[in-house]
């Protein structure tokens, strides 16, 4: 529908392989994912990125993002990321977890991941489903 005078200024991120996911209408998590994917492309780190995904809604993501993914179990992503970062210290390793996965299931793991050296990055995109968060 574009005419010669109009230029495309926004479209789905290059690192998104498909717009089809099973998250609910109106969910905020895909917005956080979009920002993350745009940032990885902007920083040119996608080739050396390992994403450690949590369990829950996030299992919708490994199949549609064009980066290497280690799928972890519920609450375990910071531990998996620690193992990955320790053996491949030059890679960019981050976790992608929901509120239940990171906060309810094992917040001590996330705190230790934040203290560890070399550091990993943990992100949580909370859909605020849990009253405690």
């Amino acid at each position, binding site marked *: 529908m574009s005419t010669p005078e109009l230029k495309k200024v926004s479209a789905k991120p290059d690192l998104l392989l498909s717009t089809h996911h099973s998250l609910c209408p109106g969910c905020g998590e895909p917005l956080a994912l979009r920002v993350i994917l745009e940032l990885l492309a902007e920083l040119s780190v996608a080739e050396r990125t390992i994403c450690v995904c949590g369990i829950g809604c996030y299992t919708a993501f*490994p*199949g549609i993002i064009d980066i290497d993914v280690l799928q972890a179990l519920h609450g375990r992503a910071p531990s998996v990321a620690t193992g990955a970062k320790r053996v491949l210290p030059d890679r960019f390793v981050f976790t992608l977890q929901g509120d239940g996965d990171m906060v309810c299931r094992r917040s001590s793991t996330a705190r230790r991941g934040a203290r560890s050296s070399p550091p990993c990055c943990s992100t949580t995109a909370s859909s605020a489903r849990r009253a405690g968060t």
Partner: protein
Amino acid sequence: MTKVLMEGSHAIAEAAIQAGCRFYAGYPITPSTEILEYMSHRLPQVGGVCMNAESELEAINMVWGAAGCGVRAMIASTGQGISLMQESFAELANAEIPCVIVNMMRGQGDYFQATRGGGHGDYRHLVLAPHTVQEAVDLVMLAFHVADRWRNPALVLGDFVLGHTSEAVEFRPRDESDLPPKTWAATGKGSRASLNVTPLGSPEKLDLKPGDHYQAIAAKLPRIAAAETRAETGLLDDAEVAVVAFGSPARFVKYAVHACRAQGMKVGWVRPISLWPFPAEAVAAAAGCVRALAVFEQNAGQMIDDVRLAVLGKVPVVPIGGISHDPSGFGVGPALAPANIIAKIAEVYRGKAAA
């Protein structure tokens, strides 16, 4: 090849390093703590990483991360710690991530835990049970090899006695040229297509196909069973009774069998080395020649189920072991005393023991 005198736990750790293990995570728990301690000073010497995690649950998931990136990784614990890791074991098998797990048991009560698995779903681990420190060295090195070959966790079942026995051992490198490169590992996509390492489905992006994936993993199990069954037998040619035992107690049983022979009793042994896959054929073959099988294990009766399944009622199967601890509770119990084992075998030989 030079032999070196080493305590069992240290030999197990060194064998892992010689096999190329470069990541270890663990939590201190008797009688596996010495493995963590040895790894903590030895692994950095070879450029590896050793982590003392907050608990066994975090430790096994650190192993998950390292092994998922293609690095040989190991964890050791005892039964209680292995219990904490069961969900992770089941999903490591589903994710086809190879790793080595060492259970230094207190007694032998973890046979069911090891061979059936306490996790969910249709998965198995390769389980190897050494009875000497040298065999532990060899089987740890084998465990890394078969874990990589089948992309499945492998479990080495030791115990307190093995861990604290010192022997002169040799580290004999294996030929590993038949193993393919780990192109499945998550390392950052670089110039190749991105991939997933996941227990939830196939590794492809966009179409994970969980049903096909789980079926393919289950289909591996009979192939593993056909290739990785191991057992040792002795003095069976004219035996009238055979004793079935695994692990360190099997060493005591062998001594007792020789003593029985000296007393004129025609006794032999069958020692399963792989507990999964269980050497049912070797046990069935022994049952074909003897009057009875005696099963010695330091628990309330676990391997005896597999023996009975292999024998299918052909001959009586008699338990002669049992739970046996010293005051420490770590399994060095009076049942291991050769005089006790000899007396139990003699009861079976003379037809006085109940099946």
